[in-house]
């Protein structure tokens, strides 16, 4: 009978091992960006049919290696985030892209246990971000409360950081945020089409 128990135990171990030991690929957070050392390490995004994603002009979007991460460059401003008439020069994405400091970034929740953004990016809370603008950004607080995140923020690098890329043309770095002053406080009309995951 001891042999029978051994065999039954072995079969049970097989079953448990099969369930536990299987490789399952994790789904990264929307704010995840692949590391890179050059533009060749990055790709041209494609849709579900394998066709390249194109912008309003029909030009394909292409990732660039910016700050060691594969990202999409853009010329909008974070202050366009809540502009109802704004359009984005970032690829459409169900998780929401917002142009922040020259790159297309996802919204994030600073309350997450795991870092929602890829280093050297961090999840910068909007309350912290807009605090520097005082009353000029007071209207954003009400809009931020409608976001699903507990502590809503955006993945990115403050432009006054040593590793931060330069602000887009026509923008200056103010309190860590690239701001353009040629069209009502922002550059262009770029903003996101959705508000995050």
């Amino acid at each position, binding site marked *: 009978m001891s*042999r029978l128990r051994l*065999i039954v135990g072995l079969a049970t*171990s*097989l079953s448990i091992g099969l369930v536990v030991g*299987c490789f399952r*690929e994790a789904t990264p957070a929307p704010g*995840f960006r692949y590391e890179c050392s050059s533009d060749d390490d990055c790709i041209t995004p494609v849709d579900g049919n394998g066709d390249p994603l194109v912008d309003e002009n029909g030009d394909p979007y292409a990732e660039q290696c910016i700050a060691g991460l594969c990202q999409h460059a853009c010329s909008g401003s974070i202050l366009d985030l809540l502009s109802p008439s704004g359009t984005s020069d970032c690829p459409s994405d169900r998780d929401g892209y917002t142009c922040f400091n020259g790159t297309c970034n996802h919204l994030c929740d600073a309350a997450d246990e795991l*870092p929602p953004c890829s*280093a050297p990016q961090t999840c910068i809370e909007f309350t912290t971000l807009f605090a520097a603008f005082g009353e000029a950004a007071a209207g954003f607080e009400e809009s931020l409360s409608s976001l699903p995140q507990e502590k809503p923020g955006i993945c990115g690098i403050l432009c006054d950081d040593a590793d931060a890329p330069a602000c887009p043309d026509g923008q200056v770095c103010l309190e860590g945020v690239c701001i353009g002053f040629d069209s009502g406080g922002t550059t262009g009309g770029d903003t996101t089409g959705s508000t995050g995951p």
Partner: protein
Amino acid sequence: MTTPPRRPALAAIVSLTALATACATFESPQPRVRPIDSRLHVVPVLAAKTSVETPPPAAEAPSDDASRPRRTTATHAVLWTGVVLASLGGAGLVGFGAAGLATNRKLDKGLLEEGISRDDRQTLVDRGETLNTATIVSASVGLLGALMAVTAYGVEYTNCGPLAPKRRRCSER
């Protein structure tokens, strides 16, 4: 004196009959049959005991493992083949499963914490899928071996075979 001439003829007939029937006993399929009376060996039909009279052979009802003959049968081969396959499958399952788990954790760490390049991610995904396949094959082999071993063990147990420990009253069967 008519009697004496008939005696040699009768003796010859009896001798021939005894010789013929005695040869027949050599072809008997029951070698364990013992004559009831040694004097009846000249008449094999009478010498042989019936099945009711003959006690069950001791060799078919072993009283313990030592007295039981060690026989190698196909059941034994299937049993040990199953055990070997189950062991190999189990070892492969544990080994490949552990490697897959390590690959999984490495990929998770890269995707969720430390960062990873697209090429490194693809390498880890390919490795993980290969290990998955190896794990599934190992599990299948192990399961097949376990089934073979359990089935063969069941046959041994049912038939009071020497590989199954005696828990049943095999001597009464």
